[in-house]
């Protein structure tokens, strides 16, 4: 296992949206686990910071929340992607790819 990295600034929303899009409704702990595992433990979500981000996404209307029983019989709040959230995700992904491509062009060997 290599060294852990903090999430790049500005990408947390994108990661959350993408996680929800791939896995369907999830609770906060689930989202953080998913990001960590899918990235082979490279991306380290500062777990607490997830919640302010989720609050903000609720306000923006990108996600909705509902309380459900979790797999191990606990009450948990599940977040679900809204159509608006899906649109936002597309926007953020495009923007991210554009930036990555630009960086790649700059750093590619001569």
């Amino acid at each position, binding site marked *: 296992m290599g060294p852990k990295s903090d999430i790049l600034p500005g990408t947390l929303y994108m990661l959350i949206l993408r996680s929800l899009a791939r896995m369907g409704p999830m609770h906060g702990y689930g989202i953080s686990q998913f990001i960590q595992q899918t990235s082979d433990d490279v991306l380290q979500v*500062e*777990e*607490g910071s997830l*919640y*302010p981000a989720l609050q903000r996404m609720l306000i923006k*209307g990108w996600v909705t929340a509902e*309380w459900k029983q979790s797999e191990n019989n*606990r*009450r948990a709040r599940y977040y679900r992607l809204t159509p608006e959230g899906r649109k936002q995700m597309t926007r953020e992904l495009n923007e991210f790819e554009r930036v990555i491509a630009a960086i790649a062009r700059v750093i590619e060997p001569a």
Partner: protein
Amino acid sequence: MRELLRRLRFLLGRPEYERELEEEMAHHLAMLEENGRLPAAARRQFGNLGSLREESRSMWTFAFLEQTAQDIRYALRMMAANPLFTATAALSLALGIGANTAIYSFLDAILMRSLPVANPHQLAILKWHAARSPGVIKGANGRMSRYGKTGRESPNFPFAAYQALRDNPALFSTMIGYTYVQNFNVTVGDAADSIPGGFVSGNYFSGLGVPPAAGRLLVEDDDRPGASPAVVLAYAYWQGRFNGDPSAMGKSIRINDVPFTIAGVAGPGFSGVDPQSNPSFFLPIHQLPPLSPHPGAEERSRFFDKNFYWLEMMIRLRPGVTLEQAQAALSAQFHRFAAGTAATPKEAEVLPDLSLEPGGAGLDYLRREYSKPLYVLMTMVGLILAIACANLANLLLARAATRRREMAVRLSLGAGRWRIVRQLLTESVLLAVTGGAMGLFVAFAGIRMITWLIANGRENFTLHAALNWPVLGFTFALSVASGLVFGLTPALQSTKADFTPALKEGRSQGWGRTGHGFRPRLGHVLMVGQIALSLLLVIGAGLFIRTLSNLHSIDVGFNRENILLVSINGRQAGYRDAALARFYSGLLDRFREIPGVRSATASNVPLVAQYVNNPDVIIPGRPSPQHSGTECLKVDPAFLETMEIPVVLGRGLQREDLASPAVAVVNQKFASAFFPGENPLGRQFALGSDPGDPMLAIVGVSTNAHYNSLQESGEPVVYIPYTQGVADLRGMFFELRTAGDPFAAVGAVRRMVQDASRAVPITEVTTQALRMEQTISQERTFANLGACFAVLALSIACVGLYGTMAYAVARRTGEIGIRMALGAQRRKIIAMVLREVFALTAAGLLIGYGAAHFMTYLVESFLYGIKANDPPAVWAAIGILLAAVLAAGYAPARRASRIDPAAALRNE
């Protein structure tokens, strides 16, 4: 939009959301533990719960407002919990803001307010000045002041100059003329009153652009010789005397016994071009001769004598014409005119030079009289504001220091740094706002007090300053800014990222940390500055108070106490010549009967009331008129005796002299100036260069008594019977020497004047002492306000010092406890605290002393009988400051010595 709705929903179901967030986070932590983390590790991985909660909450806006409300609530609780801190900070700010607003409001009223006329900035006043007394000016009536050392300046011109200059349509649209305001005997129905009025040219109202409130205003046709007499009333007089009744137009009133028809009323707010005087009516200039004792002679001198200067003038510049352009043209024109009026080449040597001054604010006498004093007062209150701001800063610094631990605790519990800074700022601003609100009341009270001080007992004082909101806003902003700046510094300091030392620090150390010795800090610097500024103000007050007491202790050469001064003008009611003299002597006989009146007399002007007339003195056998600044008083024979001016040679005036009045009593100065080494008794002289003036024989010599002012002494003075030159007899001032309170005789005096003639009103009633007080009103205002300011500055500085030291002691409780547990004596503890107070004070006094050395020269022209750095004033100020500061420092020192070591150490 939908976002807003979601936010509103959040706000409504807020406790619900809070609970949900809490549960969600708890769930997350539980899951972490379930997956094998230790609770502590789980928490560390999760982050600071408190700050995350806060951050989540802040996602829903309104948070800013909400937090501000929260901050204000908290700040109010802090203020209530520290009443001493709150009271001192708010009070010092209130005093600083209030005093400044009051003074600046006055400055604005005097220096900057425009006349209530159309386009006041177009107006310009004509004046002349000359390096010496110009020979072409052979007579003058109106204001004249000194220009340089020997020169003269005045706004008065001959009528011929007005005619010569008035038409210049390229430069100005109108030139108006007017005289200074004087009192007239006005009879409406049966009631006679003494009312101020002024003469104005026919184009006065149209030129100024003043609208009528009723009827019509004066026009050119009213202002011609032989025009039917018309008068325009001022709005306030119309309201007061005629209840604003429009039917008063066309009614007849008698002015100095001449019937005038009321033509109209000037617009509200307009009371002439001199902000200091308040005329009740306006008469055409050409009505001046009929209202004077000798209409024929008056008309000749006023309208045909090119060497008699009496008419003031103002022009309205055309748009685009500058003051300089108009001045260049007019001064050349006037120079030609003045040269043409010189009878001999010698008279043409010194000619008056015309100049223009902006006239939008009206005449400048008031400004000249009060602007420099006001600048001095302004500086003083500015210093007070500086002290008050420094005080606020100091208290905030001191308090921030005591709250370091609180801040550290809050930071470690997850409070955001910006959040804490914001809260501290809210506290300082709230404090500044409280101070500002209280300052409003101080300002209102201050304005009333200054009006009272400047008006100084004068009736119909017209300068009314209103609270100046922009100024209040400015001083208020200044105090808020100082609250922000000085609240911010400690706020940033105490929220520095590394707060562990502050947590460990406990409640004990701080201030001059043990072992570090004395290090000057911002708080100390502020304290020193406050003490230095206070010293300046106290020295200033000392100088002004000494000046006033010097003025009061001047020996004026007569007894000023217990003299009632009554001004009566029978001439304006139609009495003249011998009848007028009989009227006055009849009044005197009655006054002498009043119980409690020991003696009564009269003179054409009162003593020490700044009347100057300077007639030439002609002595037979000597070549030319003797200029010597001689003054002449026309008096009732009992004058010298009543005023208690001793006669040292020959005899005083006697009752019989009224019948054959060609005699005079002169003072010693006159005798030594004109007859040095000779016996002046029996010598003859004439007053005035007219060959018809009679010869007066000197029958006695009196001691010197002040004539013109308290400050000047030693003018040659001649006392002659008032029946001498009876044709010129006008109003008289009656001096009644009483056994007790002079005002007790006023009722009897009024009855007697009424009995003697219903047509003659009393113009003014005062006392000799009050009248003299008026001539030193500026000095008195300075002494009073200066003393107020000094007390203000001292109390603010002491309060600040007390606060700073009290906090310092509170913070060192632990250290002092240890010292005492180790055997330090109470006396030593007191000395330790006082040593610090003393060090600060000494530094402040040294700086203040140095500054005073230079600053006091700025006020030297306001002092009398002392130099700028008057040692008694300076040393007294230093003593007062030392005493006050040590007293303020002693209380905290004593408290330090009362610390119970056991309790202090338990607190660790």
